[in-house]
């Protein structure tokens, strides 16, 4: 029986659960002996001109090695990463004339002893001329206060303009509803905050340890930002404690750590506090969306418009491109006569926005799924019925949407029906009705989402492909080198399973190596749920090709025809048909000559996993507090290679997705001061706030790879968020509430109920 598809426990766990991982800050490496420690002096204000920086007091503190400001740093300017972005919104590694967000690095203090870092940083005196802060995307779009006066606008990029919208779009619709929706700013909150280490002895190459989602991408970014040849850089990836999209490339702190190591020819270490992580690791989401949906009273959705205003934070990063992904997924799983979308991205005096689990796709799903519910409420139809009526019918040949997305395979109605069945939807509605009639304090809310998303769209290196090297050693062990970069996903287990299945060697004999740019010069890293469908497939491909090479060698050795050789998976070796005694194992073949191969798997394109989630919440209508009671999740990401890993990805995503719907939000006051800069105030959900998840299985293979797998890493944050939000609104819809923005925290829900009550009172209706 094949190991693939079975619940293999994780190879990496015994070490992680006993001795613990080796994170960058834990590294013991002789190249880092005698390292000094950096700390960044960060801006305490959101928007200001820097008048002066006095480093003299800090330099006097015993143990302080050096202090640097922008005037000392001779590194290239950081340009906005995408050609379509306003290219004049440039950044210097340390703030030079201006600071643009609280947390922006302004100076570097280098200390012998890590324990004096914060004392030393306090001694750097920076004089600021405070400017009004630009907070809130609509404010930014007004261009009244500018982050770059010389640029003349806060707009980073426009994907279409209002002129592109069809003024007659909704003319043939009986019903048109429109709503402004917030997809709030959230913080990735990885368990491991950021660190970096670098060694750059005089006349030698730079070695940099960077916890990232891809060493090769980090190396390219590091070389570019240091203005040196990539051949001069060796990047290593220690264990990584969570990334969620926020650890691509090389952050400016890592670049400066390397720069100081080169300048002083002394190894450097940098490690940030949780407070700094909350301020200076990229945030996610942060879109304001106007949804307008039109159709007929009998539930036919005909037209849909999505207008997006996206926050880039203070410097345009990857966050600026995400609205284009949101646009691409505008119609979701539905058929419209016509749908249209425009987007604008602006800068504000806040932490820059980067990718965050789902990166642009959850924002699209959240918009359309709220729109469908608002439409259903308007025509008084069950939201499940409205969805069923308008879903794209099952397709097995790729389906091209009007927005240019090529959905590979899908069966959205079955997914929705499975979720409804698993939840006993009709019974839930009855229970809801009973509670409404009784006027219970705790009302039931039932919310659903139907989603389709994009996985494996590409990699840090561009195309949807990945490489792997597989080598069988004479002792019967196997080494796999992969260009993916696991940080919790379980590639050490999964890639071993892939190779084991082809080579017939037990997974306990297989070691998976990643994150060393000398050993593995190429790689696209891990993100966008690409790894199995490209990296895993490359391991499989390399394993198959390895057996082919071995076959040629075995034929020679056994003096037989290749065609007469049979590969016996149980023995991991060849035998000659009809001559049972004539055998040779792969390990034996590796004795004479190294037995290894590098293979690249190239996918024809992105895959489009889909599913449906159904959330059941209780809302205490007296206090506004909502709690998640059950969540039923159908996540069809094609064939499942290890259900344990597959479900693990879903669990984390569902919890994160529910957390956005319920509580998470990174908040600034109007002066740009962060109000949620500690874990006492930044409220991700804990185990106490989530129920056990009801995972429903559904498998629709893709034809884009031999195994039929798609990606599942982001399913949870795409499907769960709108299902939970819809459920909270549903719980109080009988009170006249049509929409509640995320996070649906107790205060927000209570205020929505109050507003609906006073509305219906003033309309003379009964509450």
């Amino acid at each position, binding site marked *: 029986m094949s190991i693939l598809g079975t619940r293999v426990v994780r190879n990496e766990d015994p070490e992680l659960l006993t001795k613990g991982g080796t994170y960058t800050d834990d590294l013991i490496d002789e190249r880092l002996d005698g390292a000094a420690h950096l700390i960044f002096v960060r801006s305490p204000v959101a928007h200001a001109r820097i008048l002066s920086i006095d480093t003299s007091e800090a330099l006097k503190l015993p143990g302080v090695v050096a202090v640097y400001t922008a005037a000392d740093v001779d590194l290239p300017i950081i340009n906005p990463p995408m050609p379509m972005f306003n290219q004049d919104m440039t950044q210097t590694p340390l703030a030079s004339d201006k600071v643009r967000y609280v947390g922006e690095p302004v100076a570097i203090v280098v200390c012998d002893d890590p324990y004096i870092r*914060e004392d030393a940083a306090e001694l750097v005196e920076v004089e600021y001329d405070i400017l009004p802060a630009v907070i809130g995307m609509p404010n930014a779009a007004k261009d009244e206060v500018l982050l770059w006066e010389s640029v003349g606008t806060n707009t980073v990029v426009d994907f279409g303009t209002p002129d592109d919208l069809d003024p007659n779009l909704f003319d043939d619709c009986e019903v048109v509803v429109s709503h402004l929706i917030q997809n709030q700013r959230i913080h990735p909150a990885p368990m491991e905050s950021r660190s970096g280490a670098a060694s750059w002895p005089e006349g030698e190459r730079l070695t940099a340890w960077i916890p990232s989602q891809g060493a090769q991408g980090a190396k390219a970014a590091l070389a570019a930002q240091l203005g040196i040849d990539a051949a001069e850089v060796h990047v290593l990836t220690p264990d990584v404690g969570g990334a969620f999209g926020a650890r691509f490339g090389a952050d400016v702190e890592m670049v400066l750590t390397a720069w100081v190591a080169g300048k002083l020819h002394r190894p450097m270490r940098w490690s940030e506090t949780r407070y700094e992580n909350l301020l200076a690791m990229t945030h996610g989401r942060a879109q304001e969306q106007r949804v307008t949906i039109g159709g007929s009273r009998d539930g036919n959705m005909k037209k849909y418009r999505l207008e997006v205003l996206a926050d880039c934070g203070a410097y345009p990063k990857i966050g600026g491109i995400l609205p284009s992904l949101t646009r691409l997924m505008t119609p979701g799983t539905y058929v419209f006569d016509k749908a249209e979308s425009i987007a604008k991205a602006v800068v504000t005096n806040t932490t820059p926005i980067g990718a965050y689990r789902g990166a642009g796709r959850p924002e699209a799903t959240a918009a359309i799924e709220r729109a469908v519910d608002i439409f259903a409420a308007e025509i008084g139809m069950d939201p499940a019925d409205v969805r069923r009526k308008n879903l794209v019918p099952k397709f097995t040949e790729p389906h091209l949407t009007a927005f240019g997305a090529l959905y590979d395979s899908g069966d959205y109605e079955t997914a929705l029906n499975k979720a409804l069945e698993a939840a006993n939807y009709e019974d839930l509605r009855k229970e809801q009705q009973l509670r409404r009639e009784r006027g219970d304090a705790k009302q039931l809310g039932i919310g659903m989402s139907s989603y389709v998303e994009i996985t494996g769209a590409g990699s840090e290196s561009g195309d949807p492909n990945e490489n792997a090297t597989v080598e069988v050693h004479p002792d019967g062990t196997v080494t796999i080198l992969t260009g993916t970069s696991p940080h919790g996903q379980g590639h050490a287990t999964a890639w071993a399973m892939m190779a084991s299945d082809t080579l017939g060697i037990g997974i306990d004999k297989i070691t998976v190596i990643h994150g060393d740019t000398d050993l593995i010069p190429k790689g696209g890293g891990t993100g966008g749920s690409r790894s199995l469908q490209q990296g895993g497939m490359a391991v499989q491909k390399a394993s198959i090709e390895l057996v082919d090479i071995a076959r040629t060698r075995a034929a020679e050795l056994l003096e037989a025809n290749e065609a007469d050789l049979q590969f016996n998976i149980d023995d991991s070796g060849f035998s000659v048909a009809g001559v049972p005694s004539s055998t040779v194992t792969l390990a034996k073949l590796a004795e004479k000559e190294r037995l290894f191969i590098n293979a690249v798997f190239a996918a024809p394109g992105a895959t489009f996993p889909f599913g449906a989630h159904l959330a059941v919440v209780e809302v205490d209508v007296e*206090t506004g507090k909502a709690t998640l009671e059950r969540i039923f999740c159908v996540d069809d990401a094609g064939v499942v290679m290890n259900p344990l890993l597959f479900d693990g990805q879903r669990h984390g995503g569902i919890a994160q997705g529910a957390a956005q719907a319920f509580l998470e939000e990174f908040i600034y006051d109007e002066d740009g001061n962060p109000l949620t800069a500690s874990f006492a105030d930044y409220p991700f959900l804990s185990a106490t706030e989530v129920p056990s998840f009801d995972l429903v299985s559904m498998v629709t293979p893709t034809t884009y790879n031999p195994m039929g797998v798609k990606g599942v890493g982001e399913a949870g944050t795409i499907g769960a968020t709108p299902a939970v939000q819809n459920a909270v609104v549903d719980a109080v819809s009988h009170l006249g509430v049509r929409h509640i923005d995320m996070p649906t925290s107790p205060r927000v829900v209570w205020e929505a109920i109050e507003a609906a009550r006073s509305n219906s009172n003033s309309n003379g209706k009964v509450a």
Partner: protein
Amino acid sequence: MIPAPFDYVRATSAEHILELMAQHGDEAKLLAGGHSLLPMMKVRLASPTVLIDIASVPELSYVKVDGDDLVIGATTSHATVANSDLIQADAPLLSYAAAQIGDPQIRHRGTIGGSLAHSDPAADLPMTLVALDGTFELLGPSGTRSVKAEDFFIGYFETALEHDEIISAVRVPRRPGVGWGYEKFTRRANDWAIVGIATVAGRVAMANMGSIPARPVATEQALAGGQGIAEAAALAADGIEPAGDMHATTAYRQHLARVLTRRALETAASRNQA
């Protein structure tokens, strides 16, 4: 996240604490469980130059019966208060409140004296001691004086403690079988209260409804005057104007106070065996 430099001394007796306080003066701070003080030092909101560790002074950690009162030593941990048979029997509200604090780690380090001395209006124990009509024993160079819980809290992080005094013990009346109610309204299991209510024997105290534990006088009077719970609870925010923050506006806090007071009073009534 690293505090400014400080010296550390460990006290061995109550008397030793007072000596060390006299010696180090205003630059020193007492360290009990450290779960309020150390977080503030780490973000440098507090920078004492000397810490006097009182956590392992044996004579300050105990729970005992003294006539009609229960007496609890100041360095008794939240976990001990939560699990003590004596307290569970005679002042179950206090055990319950202690069990609602933070998470197990915090409850095993944090102390009753530390929580009260810290005087955070959002905390669990200050309002609980006000509802219980507790008394604090304050030990200073000239001996011990008693201060009623409701006179002890003066403002945000401000108490009736003199600079040379410590809380040595907490005294609460024994009331077995008397109904009590406790409502802690949070977003997440181990958060601080957005609004909290503690009630026992017709007294009500509220957390996070102002700079000190607030008492809804109108509610208590209505109850004393024989009004029903719903009517009395509807008055819970009368004359009380808590500040708004990102979790709650003034109006929302007032609303929560009314709802939660009603619920707490209903629970208390249903529990009453006296």
